[in-house]
């Protein structure tokens, strides 16, 4: 053995001499290549910075940990650096052409560093509930926002999205913790606070950290109640210039379509319902087919980055274009990011993190007052209702559905207007960081978010005549064209000043943060409108309209916040951990007496595996228990909520109907002058562990959070004179209790196959604990005879469905007569085939007092399963998301308000008839049914969110090109859904008291795309 080693050494030495000689002989530009692996487990390390010492030149390792770099004759050493590893310098004077580097993990840095708000912390030291997702995992999916890409990846975080291009998904962290105030998590993008990240290109993101519990979010005080999502964007790395290009291009379609009755089925049904067959026509229109089309989406990203030890730069350019599956509907976004950092001296650093976004939303809204939930659903609802016996569009003229059944022609709904929302958004922050001594960091950061949007709505002129329709008549017409333009400008700035002291005394480590923040927001909107503007888009400026029809309006909003914050982190030898935070928040939105409030939190942790007594066991590689308490607030309430205002410009005509009227004021609101923030108190406890050489890692988390004073619109007695009959008050108590489980297995089979399986599940129980004198909230109105469908009442989840209970179908008139209560027949006007409803209160009548709870839109469990694998040059990823135990309300079926409205194919075939006396489905009817459990169905579903297969070209190929890396991939989003619900989708965003109702929903879409990742 000894002999062999010596022999080996000798051979190497000879080889070295030989190489040296050759190097001396050919002193010129040379190429060094090699690979970098982790010193402990020998896995390849991609993305390691390779810099020629003493220069700014460098490269980074590719996906297989390989690199190639050209050296000038005087360049003799390479520095390899990577986060979490010790930097290693390798001498290459010896002119090796191939080197292998083993990077040793940096035990100090080994742990992931988590951005926790106004600072960073090692993951192992964290005492609150947080989660972290890497940008590359998010960017893999062909979706608009990082929020959407996060679905199913993080325990405790529920993402609910629609398929509408440009729409921002809803995020609910650990259940519904408010009823009517803002529900959006706080996003912090490079220090800028916002509630909307549709402007952020996912490819720009390094990582996202989610602060889930109140102790983690307490540093954001009154902003933290809905959770905090901290987004850090990419920065340049010291080294050579890196250029990369990524794209994906694909098709979209509705993930699921609802089958409607065709003309024959429809006619039979109407005949059965009304006794008269509808007029026979030669048409058999598929209305959903009429209004939809194959969608198309593409995304392109170009990134240029680089820098020196003193300065780093990054420029990212992104372009996204989504052509929606609904005709005329599209979304386009251009993003530019410029991130710069300069180390001016050893103690002074300044930087800029900036992004510009331009987006263009075509027909994503029903009007210029952009409603975040979208409003183009009118066409979806009309397509559900429109009779198949009416033509859609023939020879330039529309079928007249409104003349036939008072429902707009769905295609014309889409074509009779043109609504475009164009937004420019400049967002970013600039900072200065001073480190006068190694243990003090002073940082001042000013962030800004400037948004400017021009919303233009053009409404075509057309009459209910035979120029527009095949048959004239009906209510779908627009006698005069109209152009409405709305210009919105908003600016928000936030100024953070913090000082961080970090010092170790033996095994005691202290980090103390103290700071102040100030924030101001100003919003202005201006609307103008004129009639009689021509249909040519080049005329779509107000000046071409009839000046006598001019209308204008303008509004504004302004608020300010001011806060003081402090946080102490203490750990003893990484064993005993303590985090305590305190934030004092003030907001101009609240009346003086309630203006300031304090948000404390404390968390403790115990890393058992660092204890002496754990050193002799070999089960756990890591075992940590932690617990925390925290208080956070939600101040997302309207600025003027506590001010009694006079509402101006209510006209009254004292001068005759042909003359100009005068404007007057009305006090229309009853207000609660004592409004204050919603306060959430949360307890959290967790166990984190790593087993089997950390191949199995996991976390089990319990939480109990309570909102003590949720602000809700109390339905006011109409007699009190509040015009919309609702008053904002702090009265509701809501609890969310839950359990989160996260397990990850990293496995390997041979050298060429490695994989990761990660699963998470969240069990959440939501309950209204108390109304405190307030009224239970009626919600979920779908109009017609169903004024409300949900009730948020004591002991029930927020927004629970509250409907009549069907107990069968009357088979005969005798059944009707036999269904008697104390005052005779309970449903005297019913016929055979009608529903029999439970007379819950036994008063002998069926009315709203007989309603019962029928579940809630909130899932009892939601979960994600993520699998990724690498085999040779192939990579594969699979993401599954699902939820269980939630209910949905089939509002589109329930809103059948005209007896001639169409019905679903299944309704035709499954209906009660005298031959098929089933007790589940009613007989043919003319709609206007009461809200009942017939419309409630299970919303449980499981979906393959994403499948991606990629192939990375080997070096042997790259060597023949100028590329440093090249990967091709195919991906599919929303590939397959398993669900019980018969509608388009069970994923139905909405406000807390008005969710899970499918009325005019944009269905989720399936995308199939291909793309490349290229490095130059």
């Amino acid at each position, binding site marked *: 053995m000894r002999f062999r080693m010596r022999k080996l050494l000798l051979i190497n030495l000879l080889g070295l001499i030989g190489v040296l000689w050759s190097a001396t002989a050919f002193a010129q530009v040379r190429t060094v290549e090699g690979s970098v692996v982790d010193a402990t487990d020998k896995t390849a390390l991609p993305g390691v910075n390779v810099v020629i010492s003493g220069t700014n030149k460098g490269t980074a390792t590719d996906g297989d940990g390989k690199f190639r770099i050209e050296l000038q004759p005087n360049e003799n050493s390479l520095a390899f650096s990577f986060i979490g590893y010790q930097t290693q310098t390798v001498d290459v004077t010896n002119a090796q052409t191939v080197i292998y580097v083993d990077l040793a993990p940096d035990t100090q840095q080994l742990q992931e560093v988590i951005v926790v708000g106004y600072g960073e912390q090692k993951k192992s030291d964290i005492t609150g509930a947080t989660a972290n997702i890497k940008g590359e995992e998010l960017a893999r999916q062909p979706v608009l926002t990082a929020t959407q890409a996060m679905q199913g990846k993080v325990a405790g975080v529920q993402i609910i999205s629609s398929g509408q291009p440009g729409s921002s998904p809803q995020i609910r962290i650990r259940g519904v913790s408010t009823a009517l105030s803002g529900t959006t998590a706080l996003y912090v993008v490079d220090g800028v606070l916002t509630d909307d990240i549709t402007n952020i290109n996912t490819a720009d993101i390094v990582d996202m950290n989610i602060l889930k519990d109140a102790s983690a979010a307490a540093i954001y005080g009154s902003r933290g109640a809905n959770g905090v999502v901290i987004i850090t964007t990419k920065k340049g790395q010291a080294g050579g210039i890196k250029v990369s290009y990524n794209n994906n291009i694909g098709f979209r379609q509705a993930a699921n379509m609802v089958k409607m009755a065709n003309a024959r089925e429809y006619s039979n049904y109407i005949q059965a319902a009304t006794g008269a067959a509808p007029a026979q026509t030669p048409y058999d229109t598929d209305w959903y087919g009429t209004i939809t089309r194959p969608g198309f989406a593409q995304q392109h990203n170009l990134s240029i980055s680089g820098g020196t030890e003193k300065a780093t730069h990054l420029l990212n350019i992104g372009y996204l274009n989504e052509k929606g599956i609904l005709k005329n509907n599209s979304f386009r976004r251009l993003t530019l990011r410029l991130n710069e950092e300069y180390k001016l001296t050893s103690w002074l650093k300044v930087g800029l993190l900036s992004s510009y976004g331009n987006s263009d939303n075509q027909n994503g809204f029903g009007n210029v007052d952009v409603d975040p939930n979208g409003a183009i659903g009118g066409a979806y609802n009309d397509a559900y209702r429109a009779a198949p016996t009416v033509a859609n569009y023939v020879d330039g003229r529309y079928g007249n559905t409104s*003349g036939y059944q*008072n429902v707009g022609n769905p295609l014309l709904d889409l074509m009779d207007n043109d609504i475009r929302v164009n937004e420019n958004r400049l967002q970013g922050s600039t900072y200065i960081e*001073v480190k*006068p*001594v190694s243990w*003090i960091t*002073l940082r001042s950061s000013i962030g800004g978010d400037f948004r400017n949007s021009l919303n233009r709505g053009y409404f075509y002129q057309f*009459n209910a*005549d035979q120029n527009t329709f095949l*048959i*004239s*008549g009906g209510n779908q017409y627009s*006698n005069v064209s109209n152009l409405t333009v709305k210009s919105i400008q908003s600016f928000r700035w936030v100024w953070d000043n913090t*000082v961080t002291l970090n010092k170790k005394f033996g095994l005691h480590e202290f980090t103390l943060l103290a700071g*102040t923040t100030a924030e101001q927001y100003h919003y202005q909107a201006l609307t103008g409108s004129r009639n009689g503007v021509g249909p040519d888009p080049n005329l779509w400026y107000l000046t071409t309209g009839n000046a*006598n029809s001019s*209308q204008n309006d303008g*509004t504004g909003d*302004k608020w300010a916040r*001011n806060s003081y914050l402090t946080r102490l982190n203490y750990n003893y030898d990484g064993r005993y951990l303590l985090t305590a935070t305190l934030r004092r928040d003030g*907001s101009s939105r609240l009346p003086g007496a309630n203006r300031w409030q304090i948000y404390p939190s404390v968390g403790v942790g115990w890393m058992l595996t660092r204890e002496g007594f754990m050193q002799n066991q070999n089960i756990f590689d890591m075992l940590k228990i932690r617990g925390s308490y925290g208080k956070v607030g939600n101040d997302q309430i309207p*600025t003027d909520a506590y001010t009694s205002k*006079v509402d*101006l410009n*209510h*006209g009254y*005509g*004292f001068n*005759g*109907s*042909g003359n100009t*009227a*005068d*404007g007057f*004021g*009305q*006090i*229309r609101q009853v*207000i*609660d002058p004592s409004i204050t923030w919603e306060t959430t108190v949360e307890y959290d406890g967790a166990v984190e562990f790593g087993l089997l050489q950390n191949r199995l890692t996991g976390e089990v988390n319990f939480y109990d959070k309570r909102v003590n004073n949720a602000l809700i619109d*109390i*339905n*006011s007695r*109409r*007699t*009190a*004179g509040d*015009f919309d*009959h609702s*008053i904002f008050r702090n009265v509701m108590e809501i609890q969310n209790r839950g359990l989160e489980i996260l397990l990850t297995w990293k496995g390997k089979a041979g050298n060429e196959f490695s994989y990761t399986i990660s699963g998470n599940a969240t069990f959440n129980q939501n309950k209204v604990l108390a109304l405190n004198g307030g*009224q239970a909230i009626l919600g979920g109105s779908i109009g017609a005879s169903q*004024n409300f469908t949900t009730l948020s009442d004591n002991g029930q989840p927020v927004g629970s469905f509250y409907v009549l209970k069907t107990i069968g179908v009357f088979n005969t008139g005798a059944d009707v007569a036999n269904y008697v209560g104390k005052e005779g027949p309970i449903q005297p*006007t019913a016929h055979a085939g009608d529903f029999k409803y439970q007379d819950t209160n036994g008063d002998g009548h069926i*009315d*709203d007092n007989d309603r019962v709870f029928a579940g809630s839109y909130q899932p009892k469990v939601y979960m994600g399963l993520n699998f990724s694998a690498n085999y040779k040059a192939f990579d594969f990823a699979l993401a599954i998301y699902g939820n269980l135990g939630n209910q949905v309300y089939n509002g589109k079926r329930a809103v059948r*308000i005209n*007896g*001639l409205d169409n019905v679903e194919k299944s309704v035709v075939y499954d209906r009660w008839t005298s031959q098929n006396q089933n007790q589940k489905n009613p007989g043919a009817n*003319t709609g*206007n049914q009461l809200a009942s459990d017939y419309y409630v169905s299970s919303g449980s579903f499981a979906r393959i969110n994403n499948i991606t297969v990629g192939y990375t070209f080997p070096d042997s190929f790259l060597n023949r090109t100028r590329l440093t890396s090249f990967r091709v991939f195919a991906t599919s989003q929303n590939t397959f859904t398993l669900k019980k619900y018969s509608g388009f989708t069970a994923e139905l965003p909405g406000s807390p008291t008005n969710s899970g109702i499918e009325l005019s929903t944009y269905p989720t879409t399936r995308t199939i795309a291909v793309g490349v990742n290229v490095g130059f």
Partner: protein
Amino acid sequence: MTMRKIYIASLTFVLLTVLSCKDSFLDVPVQGGVTIDSDPNLAQSLVGGVYAGLLQGDSWGDGDVHGFAFISVTSIMSDDADKGSTASDQLNPVGDLDDFNHTSTNKFAETLWSGHYNSIGAANQALKALSNSTVLTDAVKNQYVAEVRFLRGYLYFNLVRMYGKVPLVLNVAKDAEDAATNPVFATRASVADVYTAIIADLQFAAENLDVALLAPHGHANKGTAQSMLAKVYMYQQNWQQVFDLTNEVITSNQYSLIADYASLWRQSEDFSPESIFEIGTGKFNNANLKIDNYTVSQGPRTGGSGGWDDLGWGFNDPTVNLVNAYEPGDLRKNATIIFINNSGDHKGTPLWDGFRVPSSDSVQNLRYNYKAYTSKLKETFANAADKDRPKNVRIMRYAEVLLMNAEAAVHLGQGDPDGKINLLRDRADLTPKSGVTIDDIWQERRVELAMEHDRFWDLVRQGRAAEVMQASGKHFQQGKHELLPVPNSEIQLSGGLLDQNPGY
């Protein structure tokens, strides 16, 4: 060196901190929102705001005072009109009301309740602001208070006729707590108490308003208040008061019958000498200022083979029963009803302004309300292209004062009932009557005020609603259908304090 760096950096930091924490930083006034405190003159504006509340027509939403819901319960429910439109259109809530199948969740019964209380809230707010106002003289203040109290009295008069017992709200809700807990908002006062309050309001208005009009048109004046008060007394069968008040109005010489009955409801006769109380519409902000859906809901609707750009939804169609109520030759018949040509000659029906409504093969229904017709050709509107155009709704005309006077005169056996009735008959080109009876007057009321939102309540007042309605084939139940149900949602909000009307 290091110390100096610390010193400089810390100083900078402290400065930044101090700068960002000025006390006034958080005192941000509401942007673009005025309050009574910021502008004392707003009290005056709030008076106009109470009038503006009369235009509420959000029948499926937040509130209706004179919109489609009002049309439904005053006219469609009566024997004068049918639901109209297509058979299936708006079966709920309108069809249910027409046929007396409505329940306590009927949307229109709910929005009428909300609309009236919205307006009453606006009135109470105005009264409060007026009493606190320091800029108005007492005389002007009294004038405004009287106008507002007139409107509040009128609104309660509608409420008591629709629902019977209702909560009597005469002050603003102080704040949310008060609105939610004060029993005033959830306890129904007796019908007698409501009438006492109505009479107090109208009496105050009658005493404090000028005979001469303060503003050119539209504002309530002494005669308006006296006439409304007379009608209230008529519902209480206090005939002496009816007689005296109507006599005062008649002898004030402020009002007269206009010559042409047919033009009464046209724009040219807005605020005519015959108008006692009228809801004012017009142009505002370059748009039609109107009661939403008042005209479009009643406009002739396309049907059959269609082929024309129709005028509306075709609701509130005069019945054959009403047609038959007219004596032969009564000019008022063709002034009240648009008869669709059903003769087969396809000549359509030319209207007063020259517009021709097509014949029955292209029109949905056979009769429409002429009084709700607006002329695109001969009348002016901010947006004539909009089918929903402004129409001043005549709530009370001088003709009704004469009718009330006549009815009181017959009851009291004094005055000149024949003379009053014959003024109207003469205008309608009918022969005079003598020795008129109560029945004669009721008949005259019906045809004179047809489609003017009086018939249903009048039948209830006369005590023969059940008899007449059942005769016209409606499912009217005596002791139930005289009143609308108290909205179920409001009962739920009352925490059980509100009770329901009998039978619902």
